């Protein structure tokens, strides 16, 4: 990985340049494989996270390719129903649980500490634990899949189909347990983000000076905290129904199939926004940078994020209109589902206004932003259509909804994510991605997405239902399905260009330097890639415009230890320094704990006793983790003077 690292230039500002060497020793005390396992550096963990998510993205994409190949003509025999059901379940599960949500959080784990100007994330060891748990969960479900035990009840796993009677074997158990794995990881990342954004911001970065990306990540983290427990509870109930014969979802014994749907969608709908809101954060940063001006209407943008997050918890029943919802309820949920378009619409207007007022620089990231506006707007408008109960009862569970959701998720998450890759790739690797290939990537993806998914609107209205492994020739759906499959080939070509670009730029892209785009946020104030300690002296933020506001010098505070990993903790509202927090050193305890949690959860699909046994066993790495370790360090000479923030602001 380090083979082709570019020359490190532009080290972060430090009053005493000798600090760089000291900090490097402190933050990188050991090297080698053990150090890799024990690493608690948020950058290296986030890079692994992103890479893992991209591998799952590729697997999910291959599954989508199988789906499109199978459906390209009527009564196709490429795969049978059993394989097809596993493939489409794995596609949905992978894309939602192993790609979309975690990669948005992983991008946050990399960028949030840098963007707040901190040396580390708030809880580095917890961070490592989250990643390992995620990895084990993802590998676990794919191991099952390759052993012909892939979940086959859909990514939504409706009971009773996913229950003990109708889904035999361990397939659904593996799925339900994978949910638990990814929940743990997602909740850890959320907790991480909340503490980092609220407590580790650079001095002077008061809430109203926070970049919109940080707002987006913060809002998302709170949504994760309230949404994820719902599906975790639901899937635990499901695994108990399947393993020990509890009756949560058994209608014959007073349980209720709709209880699952409520629990699932109370998570499932906010989840869409958990994926989408970080993407809005990407867009805001990229628009700012490439129009060379702040986004118009900062308070409105923040308010829109908050309103979206709040409202997204009042929409879940619109996934259940066909189950018969009482009149009053359906009125409420229709109104909420319709009106959530307002905050999103306002944000799009703000970006358009920013483009209009600024002088756009047409690099690949901004191109992807334009793609986002086009594709996402179509998805949003069909979203308003399906919010209407009478029309939804026609469109629900048809290919119209398949089209809608792919427009929303590809437009609202994948396009912004690609924009973000092109934008932050130089920060992560120190090299720029190729512009020419970037344009090819964009246009192939843009054309491919529209060719693949636009015909599906029509297919849905013509009665093609979701999750069918094939269809009769007499339905007349063959032509549009073929068009759609051709579009999938174009998407694959676009993705291939991306992979080539990634590989080529990784080795031989142009050296980026600290701030290749002349952007305003703090992550660009350190070298690319950043040193293990991110920043030397804490940078003082003087305005919402971040780096753009500085003159010839960057104001910093002095006085953090260099012999110990120490971060500056500030107040929640105004980001005034209050505490010099000493961070933990690298340890293998999180890895060990993740392995034990993995053994507990995997064992839990065979016997309920795995849970108490696992809980006790976790005590061992917990003691490894928390046991005090005497750290020897030379005492530094006291710096004279007191801190004050008033002067520069």
């Amino acid at each position, binding site marked *: 990985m380090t083979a082709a690292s570019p020359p490190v230039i532009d080290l972060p500002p430090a009053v005493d340049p000798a600090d760089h060497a000291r900090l490097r020793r402190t933050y990188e005390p050991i090297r080698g494989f053990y150090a890799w396992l024990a690493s608690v550096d948020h950058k290296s963990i986030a890079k692994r996270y992103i890479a893992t998510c991209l591998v799952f993205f590729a697997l999910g994409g291959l599954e989508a390719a199988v789906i499109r190949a199978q459906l390209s003509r009527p009564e196709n025999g490429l795969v049978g129903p059993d394989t097809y059901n596993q493939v489409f379940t794995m596609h949905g599960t992978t894309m939602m649980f192993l790609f979309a949500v975690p990669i948005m959080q992983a991008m946050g784990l990399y960028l949030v500490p840098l963007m707040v100007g901190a040396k580390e994330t708030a809880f580095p060891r917890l961070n490592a634990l989250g990643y390992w748990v995620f990895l084990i969960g993802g590998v676990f479900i794919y191991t099952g899949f390759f052993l012909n035990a892939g979940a086959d009840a859909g990514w939504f796993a409706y009971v009773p189909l996913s229950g003990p009677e109708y889904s035999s074997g361990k397939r659904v158990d593996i799925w339900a347990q994978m949910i638990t794995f990814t929940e743990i990881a997602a909740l850890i990342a959320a907790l991480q983000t909340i503490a980092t954004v609220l407590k580790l911001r650079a001095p002077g970065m008061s809430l109203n000076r926070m970049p919109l990306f940080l707002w987006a990540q913060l809002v998302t983290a709170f949504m994760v905290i309230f949404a994820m427990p719902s599906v975790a509870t639901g899937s635990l109930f499901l695994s108990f129904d399947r393993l020990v014969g509890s009756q949560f979802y058994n209608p014959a014994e007073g349980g209720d199939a709709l209880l699952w749907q409520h629990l699932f969608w109370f998570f499932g709908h906010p989840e869409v926004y958990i994926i989408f809101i970080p993407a809005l954060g990407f867009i805001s940063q990229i628009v700012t940078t490439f129009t060379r001006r702040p986004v118009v209407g900062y308070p409105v943008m923040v308010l829109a994020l908050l309103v979206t997050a709040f409202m997204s918890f009042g929409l879940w029943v619109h996934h259940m209109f066909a189950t*018969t919802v009482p009149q009053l309820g359906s009125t409420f949920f229709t109104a909420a589902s319709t009106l959530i378009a307002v905050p999103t619409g*306002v944000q799009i*207007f*703000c970006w358009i206004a920013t483009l209009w*007022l600024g002088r756009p620089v047409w690099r690949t990231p901004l191109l992807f932003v334009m793609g986002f506006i086009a594709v996402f707007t179509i998805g949003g408008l069909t979203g308003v259509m399906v919010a209407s*109960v009478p029309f939804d009862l026609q469109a629900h*569970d048809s290919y119209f909804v398949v089209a809608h959701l792919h427009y929303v998720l590809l437009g609202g998450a994948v396009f912004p994510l690609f924009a973000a890759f092109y934008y932050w790739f130089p920060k992560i690797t120190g090299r720029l991605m190729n512009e020419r290939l970037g344009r090819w990537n964009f246009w192939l993806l843009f054309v491919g997405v529209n060719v693949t998914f636009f015909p599906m609107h029509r297919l849905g209205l*013509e009665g093609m239902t979701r999750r*069918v492994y094939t269809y009769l020739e007499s339905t007349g759906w063959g032509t549009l399905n073929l068009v759609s499959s051709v579009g999938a080939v174009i998407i694959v070509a676009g993705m291939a260009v991306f992979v080539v670009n990634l590989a080529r730029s990784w080795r031989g892209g142009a050296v980026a330097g600290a701030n290749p785009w002349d952007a305003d946020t703090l992550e660009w104030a350190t070298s690319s890639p950043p040193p293990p300690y991110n920043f030397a002296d804490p940078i003082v933020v003087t305005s919402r415009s971040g780096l753009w506001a500085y003159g010839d010098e960057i104001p910093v505070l002095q006085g953090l230890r260099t012999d110990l990993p120490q971060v500056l903790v500030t107040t929640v509202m105004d980001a005034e320094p209050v505490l010099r927090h000493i961070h933990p050193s690298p340890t293998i305890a999180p890895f060990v704990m993740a392995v034990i949690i993995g053994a507990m959860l995997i064992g839990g699909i065979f016997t309920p006793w795995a849970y108490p046994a696992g809980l006790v066993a976790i005590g061992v790495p917990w003691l490894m983790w928390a046991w005090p370790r005497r750290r020897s360090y030379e005492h530094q000479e006291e710096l004279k003077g007191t801190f004050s923030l008033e002067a520069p602001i």
Partner: protein
Amino acid sequence: MTWLQAAHSALHPASAQADRVGRLYNFLLIVAVLVFVAVMVAALWAAWRRRPIDEDTSPARDARAHRVIFAGAAATVAILFVALVYDLALGRSLTRRATREMLTVRITGHQWWWEVEYEDPTPQNRVRTANELHVPVGQTVALKLASADVIHSFWAPSLGGKKDLIPGHHNELWFTPTEPGLYRMQCAEFCGLQHAYMALEVVVEDSKKFAQWINAQRKPAATPPDTLTARGKLVFESGPCATCHAIAGTSAAGTIGPDLTHIASRRWLASGRLGNTRANLAGWIVDPQRIKPGVLMPSNGLEPADLQALLNYLASLK
């Protein structure tokens, strides 16, 4: 035999309810297209407009932009509000209690076929059939939906919206067909291996034809006219068929699979998978797992003579 194409599209409404939803769809579509064009024009213009070199960059321009954004937000709210009022008004009127004179049909979803039972106060007049629903044109039909196993969903796009069949819950769906014809539907909620091939055909016909049909359905199965057919009946009753299937007027009374009393009168076999021809039926009986892998009907290795007799018998069940 030519197979009439059955309508299967929300874009070709053939009931009072589907028609009104179709109009709502047209309205929403027009609004969506207009909004999309407006947004794209604004975005493209903002992105690639010609910029004077000495353009004013004073904060006053930001204030103007704020006003435009505010106007855009107000327009969004206004459009959504109109759409919302239309939605809710239509939704309300569609869920209102329908006419009193209604044909009530019980639909039970099974993995992977539809059980259809016409209710009637007189027990002899009740009719059980499968995968085919006949209704008279112009009369409101109420479907009482239930499931025998997992969740299914009833959706005939030309006749109106869908409703789920949920074990432990009772749902109702009604529509008033306005045009005679054939309307196909298939299960809309993922229900397992053969979810793709779980179709039903709705036959909308004038009330005279409907009356004929239902009267024919009320009769028990025809008695075999010849010895070969009689042997087929014996094969059916004593062989594996009767374990799962029923034929009214015989000793076959299985309840696991569809009722076959008038199978020869139906257009389709295997829940809309195969046209009802002798060859298809033979293939289906001998090796259903090839045609619908995972279906609950087992392969039946009948002696060729038995099979021919059985096919004769089933063909006689008009």
